[in-house]
């Protein structure tokens, strides 16, 4: 085997990856001014929920196959249950910060938390 376990470039690679992703994670977690959850099904916007304006519990069931149940509460949103096998979207838990995202691949449903200010420009 000609491969060594560690070489100098490895440290540079690891440091660069951690630095770049660290910056993105920090940028996303500091910005909590507005919380808008976007629910898209197969690429089409299904609904935008203003999480700061939700009173009590709101249940959203988009028309998808397999079915997914989304629950929005003040400041957070999550996949409550899904009829698929692996339940990766449910395991993602509550989305509370800008940049948080939960994906249910079998049903093509994505919940992502966005900044309402940028949305105003986008739409």
């Amino acid at each position, binding site marked *: *085997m*000609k*491969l*060594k*376990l*560690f*070489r*100098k*470039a*490895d440290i540079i*690679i*690891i440091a660069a*990856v*951690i630095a*770049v*992703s*660290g910056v*993105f*994670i920090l940028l*996303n977690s500091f910005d909590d001014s507005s919380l808008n959850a*976007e629910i*898209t099904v*197969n*690429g*089409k916007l299904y609904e935008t929920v203003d999480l700061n304006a939700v009173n009590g519990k709101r249940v959203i069931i988009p028309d998808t196959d397999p079915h997914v149940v989304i629950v929005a509460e003040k400041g957070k949103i999550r996949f409550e249950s899904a009829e698929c*096998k*692996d339940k*990766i*979207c449910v*395991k*993602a*838990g509550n989305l509370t910060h800008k*940049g*948080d*995202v*939960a*994906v249910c*691949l*079998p049903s*093509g*449903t*994505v919940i*992502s938390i*966005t900044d309402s200010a940028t949305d105003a420009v986008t739409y």
Partner: protein
Amino acid sequence: MKNNIAYKTALGAILCAQAIALSFLEGLIPAIPFMPPGAKPGFSNIITMFAADSLGFPMAMIITLVKSGFAFITRGATASLMSLSGGVLSTVIMYLLIRYASEKTGLTGISVIGALCHNAGQLFCSAILTGNSKTFYYAPVLAVFAVLTGVLTGVILKAVYPALEKQKKYLFHIH
């Protein structure tokens, strides 16, 4: 005799079985709280990397393809596509690094880049499947996780490399 088709088939089958066994076993590890949802350590990459270094590109790619075929049978089309998109990209890049850049990068670096490529392939695939590019929000957390698992699998491969080489020779002796 090492170019014998029967020898290659047998060795390939054993390596595929080992890769599949590893990905099954890592599925039994309970979810760690801070772990990104759906993220896995990718231990079967130990076998793919070994194949890419010791047996060449075709064998590494065959293992990747068989693995995604197994995902299709056991976990369905979506899982299989995810396995394929991540696996093919990371296998190609890892092979190129081993072949042309092993003077500069070590096992750890190649393994980390392999894990990153696996993520990148899967993120592109899930963006296409969901029609929503917001899936890329996952990227930074996944990248940090890829560094941890990449280092881990790199170190494990270094430790088991002699055993995998021995397995190669052992099979040769039976013949």
